[in-house]
């Protein structure tokens, strides 16, 4: 089963290779991995999309925790979460296709962020299914280049904490 794991790591050189090495050395899958700094610049946040049965996911979480440069590991599948991915798609457009490309972008609420007489570069954000769908529609026009960010995700705030909020306000 697919799992999304958030890993907070030290922002040091070599950390990415430790994580990647752990996955390759132990034969775990990485479907996608994205890294970026957090609010605290001494740390980075990784979103790793992986898959495996319960036992493997338990090992992945434990092995990640064991790495000294890893500060925190959260398996998002243990709660509710939202995830998004962005793709930049450079579509080759002949004169007669240009309107069609724009229509497709419009349907997916995607933006055209660059344009030349023979191409559009389209930015689309959504879940993987949406990205697959727009790619499928644009493919007949001719996709020159495609770059995907891999998924990023965040846990949904539990409903419980929302109901707690007003009480606090009331007391104050």
């Amino acid at each position, binding site marked *: 089963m697919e799992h999304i794991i958030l890993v907070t*790591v030290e922002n040091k050189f070599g950390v990415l*290779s430790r994580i990647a*090495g752990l996955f390759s050395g132990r034969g775990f899958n990485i479907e996608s991995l994205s890294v970026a700094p957090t609010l605290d610049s001494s740390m980075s946040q990784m979103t790793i999309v992986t898959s495996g049965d319960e036992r493997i996911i338990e090992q992945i979480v434990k092995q990640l925790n064991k790495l*000294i*440069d890893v*500060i925190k590991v959260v398996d998002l599948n243990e709660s509710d979460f939202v995830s998004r991915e962005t793709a930049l798609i450079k579509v080759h457009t002949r004169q007669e296709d240009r309107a069609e490309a724009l229509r497709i972008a419009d349907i997916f609420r995607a933006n055209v962020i660059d344009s030349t007489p023979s191409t559009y570069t389209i930015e689309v954000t959504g879940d993987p299914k949406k990205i697959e769908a727009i790619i499928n529609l644009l493919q007949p026009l001719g996709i020159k280049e495609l770059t995907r960010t891999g998924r990023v995700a965040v846990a949904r705030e539990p409903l419980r904490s929302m109901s707690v909020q007003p009480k606090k306000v009331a007391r104050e």
Partner: protein
Amino acid sequence: MKLTGAEIFIECLRREGVKTIFALPGGVVLKIFDMLHQQKDIEVVLTRHEQGAGHMAEGYAKATGKAGVCLVTSGPGMTNVITALADAYMDSVPLVCFSGQVPTSLIGNDAFQEADNVGLSRPCTKYNFLVKDVNELASTIKEAFYIATTGRPGPVLVDIPKDVSMDKAEFNYPNSVSIRGYNPTYEGNKWQIKQAAEAIVKAKKPILYVGGGVVFSGASQELIELAELTQIPVDMTLMGLGAFPGEHPLSMGMMGMHGTYQANMAVHYADLVVAIGARFDDRVTGKVSEFCPYAKIIHIDIDPTSIRKNIHVDIPIVGDCKAVLRELNQILKATVNGEQKELRKAWWEQIREWEQGHPLTYHQEQDGPIKPQHVIKRLYELTKDRDPIVSTDVGQHQMWAAQYFKMAKPNRWLTSGGLGTMGFGFPAAMGAQAAFRNRLVLCIAGDGSVQMNMQEMATAVVHKLPVKIIVLNNRFHGMVRQWQDLSYEGRYASSYLDTTPDFVKLAEAYGAVGLRPGKVGDIDGILKEAIATKGPVIVDVPTHPYENVYPMIPAGGCNHQMILEDPPELKQKQSSGDTVTPQDKDTILTA
């Protein structure tokens, strides 16, 4: 006052209480060696190969419980020490390895003797550092020792570029270390420990399965207390030998592929297995799906990843063995009563029946070829009162040593378990000898594996490390030959060592002493002579070439399905003679 990186290095080692390092110089570490040469606190044992340095540091660490330290140069120095790092990583040996690196300005330029030391060692170290600034050297070394010796111990590499060893900085050695991503758990969960205690009290057929974690945690006393209090039999892994006294009536000896009959039967039929500081290695579990099918499993380990890695565990307890056992014993003292003895009466009767039915056995004819087991048994009986440290290489001799040399105390048994590194034994024995100059240190080796680090005899002679090597010389890679006999119809592909050196002359060539018993009756005398000799000794014992290690669980087999003796076709070979016959030699060399 500002110090150079090399001076800071030495100052840090002093603060860590390091007395001995095992080292081999090279271009980029010359500054450090130059400073080492000008001080007296730290002894430098100059090895003949970096692998030897690594294993010596391991032997030192295993015997003392403190971190072993080695120092190597960049490039080939680093690649040579990697086997020792991997060995230490598998067996959780606290090790700090310092490697030289080309100057920071040249890193990545394919400079002379450059290697990506951090990249090379990443999968076989607990952690590694590249020090890019001399101002960070002291705090890095402090962290390296801290990481190597805390939690589940392991090797740590510190890579020091040449310019960092020459640059100057103020020396500030931190008093404490805090790493936000590294907080090992020492105290076990109290509720889980209570659950474990309840299960132990109720169990009819319990067994303790004890590994190297008990040795490193220094929990032997607590273990003995637990076993005696509850009267539970103790199975030890290869790494756990010595954690519990081998001659104790509750000791079942070693378990696993070449474990004793009673140890393996007991773990298979147990209704409760209490694993302490062990990791359910495949050499212990055999076929995982049928490992202790009737048992509830309690697993105490400091490393959470060990728990449920191979085997489903019912009561996991993450923590230091010593702390957890102490807590567990406290609860048990209040709850254990006479009832358990009655409850487990049938279990003990069964165990004694297994024990008496299939003891470890070999047949030594008085005028026949020397049996390797007999040599080890005599060695054990002649030396046990001297509380010796015993190292082994890897192979048949290692298994016989594990079976017949019953360790009484922890930190005396030095062997390569996880990685199975041939060539480990001799340098490891030297490392232990360097830590304990006046103790008796024995190395039981095979003629195949001892040659893998033979060059260190020069180090032993120069540094007066009087290790006694007992070579069980069957002119084969014996364990390979055994598997070929059992699984490959006796085709000895590359296992026969046609020209084995004359080990007596070899010892003499190095300036050591070489001895060789000619027949069974000579063994005691020769061993005594070796022990009485002042310097290092090689005792070359020509042994029966076709002797096999039993019991044996075939690869992928279950623990209760042991082969206990040679199948009939091999028995014939056994009785065929004392050396490889000319016909044998022909088949070996032409097949």
